[in-house]
């Protein structure tokens, strides 16, 4: 049979970025075709072009043997293409049914929605694919896995024969990934073609029939899973050996820098999201916190930094009870912080770089002289950060908005490191930055560690956690469920602790 989709020479440029550079891709009918690549490789862009959400600058698209030009997603939907986006596209305040039928509502006279018909159709679809859902439930009340099911049903409801799934596993726990894969295989059996984006090589190898690798906007290879190993794939993705974080010797001292004693953090509904957590971090030590996202790491970090109130327990910084200190006081005591979401918590996008570099340190030199904000000092420090952390920017007067994501991240890490902190709280410090910069951050962390900095490192990158940490703790549902030695633990082990497959070895 022919190809379901044939893309040839697709290019897409954004201001300053070539997201897709003459990409070609052929997807056979009825296969599961995985697309992988680094962050920013252009995967989502390509898929959005295929789905009509973006228009390619150049290139040809052939769907089902016919050349097409999409002007909006409706055009793609009409040809049986459906897409599940990287970020959920669901309105919390809509019911499942409303979310599903939106844009394709069965109507009676006067534009009345025929809810009865819609519900019947929804039931039919969900039954035939074994995806059960409560049609009248508000999406607000659904779990992540359920939401994903809604997304998939949304696509199936429209009778899509070609499904695009953009990083569907990113938010799922392994159990849910299993379920998802089962569903995908079902779909394949019933004749669907599936395009599937993923970063996790093991998953790709497990499910894909064909794999296409993108790098810097170009197609670098199309391979069959049986012909490659994970390491091969990784090399295809980044163009070289993956740099591995390694630490040299131990610099752990006996002076405690951070002590967390039975800390509990409650969410808005008074449920514990961090549940009775205790640990110590010494000067010269890196404590890695591993865990599937959403298991309390973010809240724990907030509690350490002071942006979230601790309901029970204590946080001690350099021996002093800092539980009730505000952020500024903690920062002045030598704490630095790389937030996990740089745009939300790290940067002033509309402000020039030198104002960004002052943020969090504005009460101390070189940013302040008496009551005055020291612009000269701030600019000088910014130049330093730019140089030392290789922030690629024409000058330091541009707004943070105009930097690429990786450079934004480098700016944030650089500003925090430049303050020579004694305590460093880093949430995903290398997320979204290129290989060279990644190695650089690791090197900086190592140097600071040697100089006595105590680090709390939260990361989703298991290699990073294992390679950088002196001690690893694993968080699951708000509790510390394991303390592990990085020298002996494997990523596979770590993964099973994170998903709760292992019983906790040491109670937290």
């Amino acid at each position, binding site marked *: 049979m022919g190809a379901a989709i044939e893309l040839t020479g697709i290019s897409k440029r954004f201001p300053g970025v070539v997201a897709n550079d003459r990409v070609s891709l052929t997807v056979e009918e009825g296969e599961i075709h995985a697309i992988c690549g680094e962050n920013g490789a252009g995967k989502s862009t390509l898929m959005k072009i295929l*789905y*009509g*959400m*973006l228009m390619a600058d150049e290139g040809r698209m052939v769907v089902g043997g016919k050349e097409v030009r999409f002007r*909006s*997603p*409706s*055009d793609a*939907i009409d040809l049986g293409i459906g*897409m599940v*986006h990287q*970020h959920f*596209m*669901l*309105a*919390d*305040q*809509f019911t499942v049914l*409303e*979310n599903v*039928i*939106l*844009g*394709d*509502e069965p*109507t009676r006279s*006067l*534009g*009345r*929605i025929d809810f009865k018909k819609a519900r019947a159709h929804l039931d039919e679809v969900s039954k035939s694919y074994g995806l059960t859902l409560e049609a009248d439930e508000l999406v607000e009340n659904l779990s992540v896995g359920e939401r994903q099911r809604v997304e998939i049903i*949304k696509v199936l409801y429209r009778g899509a024969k070609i499904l695009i799934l953009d990083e569907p596993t990113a938010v799922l726990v392994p159990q849910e990934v299993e379920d998802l894969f089962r569903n995908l295989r079902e779909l394949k059996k019933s004749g669907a073609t599936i395009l599937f984006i993923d970063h996790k090589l093991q998953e790709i190898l497990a499910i894909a029939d064909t794999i296409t690798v993108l790098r810097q906007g170009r197609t670098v290879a199309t391979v069959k899973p049986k012909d490659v190993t994970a390491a091969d794939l990784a090399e295809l993705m980044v163009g070289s050996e993956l740099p591995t974080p390694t630490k040299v010797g131990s610099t752990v001292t006996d002076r405690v820098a951070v002590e967390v004693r039975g800390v509990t953090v409650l969410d808005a509904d008074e449920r514990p999201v961090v549940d009775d957590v205790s640990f110590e971090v010494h000067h010269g030590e890196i404590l890695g916190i591993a865990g599937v996202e959403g298991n309390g790491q973010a809240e724990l970090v907030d509690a350490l930094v002071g942006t979230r109130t601790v309901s029970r327990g204590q946080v001690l910084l350099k021996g002093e009870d800092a539980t009730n200190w505000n952020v500024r006081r903690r920062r002045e005591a030598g704490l630095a912080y790389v937030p996990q979401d740089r745009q939300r918590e790290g940067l002033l996008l509309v402000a020039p770089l030198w104002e960004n570099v002052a943020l969090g340190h504005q009460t101390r030199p070189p940013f302040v002289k008496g009551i005055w904000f020291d612009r000269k000092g701030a600019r000088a420090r910014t130049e330093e950060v730019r140089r030392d952390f290789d922030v690629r920017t024409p000058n330091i007067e541009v707004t943070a908005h105009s930097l690429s994501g990786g450079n934004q991240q480098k700016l944030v890490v650089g500003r925090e490191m430049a303050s020579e902190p004694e305590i460093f709280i880093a949430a995903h410090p290398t997320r979204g930055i290129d290989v060279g910069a990644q190695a650089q951050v690791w090197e900086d962390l190592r140097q600071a560690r040697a100089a006595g900095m105590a680090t709390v490192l939260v990361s989703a990158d298991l290699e990073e956690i294992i390679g950088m940490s002196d001690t690893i703790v694993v968080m699951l549902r708000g509790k510390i469920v394991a303390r592990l030695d990085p020298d002996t633990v494997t990523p596979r082990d770590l993964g099973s602790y994170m998903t709760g497959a292992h019983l906790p070895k040491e109670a937290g």
Partner: protein
Amino acid sequence: MLRRFAALPAWARYSAAAALGILVLSFVQALEPGGLERLTSENASGAMLRWSVPILLAGLGGLFAERAGVVNIGLEGMMVLGTWAGAYGYLHGGPWMAVLVGLLGGAVGGLLHAIATVTFKVDHIVSGVAINILAPGLVRFLSQYAFAGASGGSITQSPVIHGLPLVTVPFLAGGDLFGWKTPDILGSITGWNIFFLSDITAFMRGFAVNVSIFTLLTLAMVPAAAWLIWKTRFGLRLRIAGEHPVAGESLGVNIYWQKYKGTVISGALAGLGGAFIAMELTGFYREGQVQGRGFIGLAALIFGNWRPGGVLIAAFLFGYPFGTALRDLDGRSTHALLLLIVVGLAAIAVVSFRRAKRVDAILAGGMAAGFLVWYLLTETAPDWLPNALPFATVLIVLVFASQRLRMPVADGRIYVRGEEL
């Protein structure tokens, strides 16, 4: 108990709330020294109705914009355009033309807001404020040419115009039906003078006696708006623009178009409200006659939790003290309203106390005590009270309830096609 109440169907909830309101009013007026009957009279509800309609229209206007994610504090300006356009339309084609042109006048304001906020991505508040400043200047200028030549017209006012016909509903209030005078059911029951029951019928009769067709049409818009927003394709697509525009876009819904629609409808309704003021309340266009009703409409929208029924209740809540105070020839009705506030605050205090919200309970209790003292120490209320009362009421209610309100998630956010977040 509240939960069980919330589970009732909408019509039952609204009737129960209305009955409760009238019950409280009956008590309050019975307690007023010397006794009163007028708080629940048909005149009271008639006046309330007249004074509520523009607020209701403004609130419904706000609803359509904000459901599409566009905050519209330009309602005031759009009402101003409506007052002027209504008068202009009347002078060039009579009352129905006034309705139409008033609607169009407001819609032009809405369109301007949409162009600024949707196409040019101007901050919603900024654009709204600009429209509020622009509108009065514009109509003053236009009046120079449209009205200043005519008899009775000037740069600040139009010649006299008239409203739509008044009707009295057959059977309910004894209106004529093809020349036959029907029985007056509500009137008869009121005549029996039974506590509470007669209060209810008297109050209801105010909705049926001598009401303008314009008023009736506006009231009909409430269920129509609810139906449109919750039950139709139009509404579903409008709402996605306010809740999660990117999701809508990803399913082929043109979000810009939704926002344009919502904002233009918003302006049109506000314009209708303006036309109502000019035609039905004032009898001509006159500079400054909107008097903040656009802002009150916005408050009604929030108070009504972005729902048509809620907006209706809020509009009544605002219209009632205004209407009552105007018909209050001896100052005692307004005084009785003080007691109403005491009752309301006391209820909040009790509920807060039972929910263990101590600060709220003390705050509400303290305020209730303050108003009670005021009530007991005076015999009439000052003239300014009705002007300030509705605003104070909204603020008080928001102080205790703003956490319970839920506005459309993406309300007020600038949406750029192709940009996530």
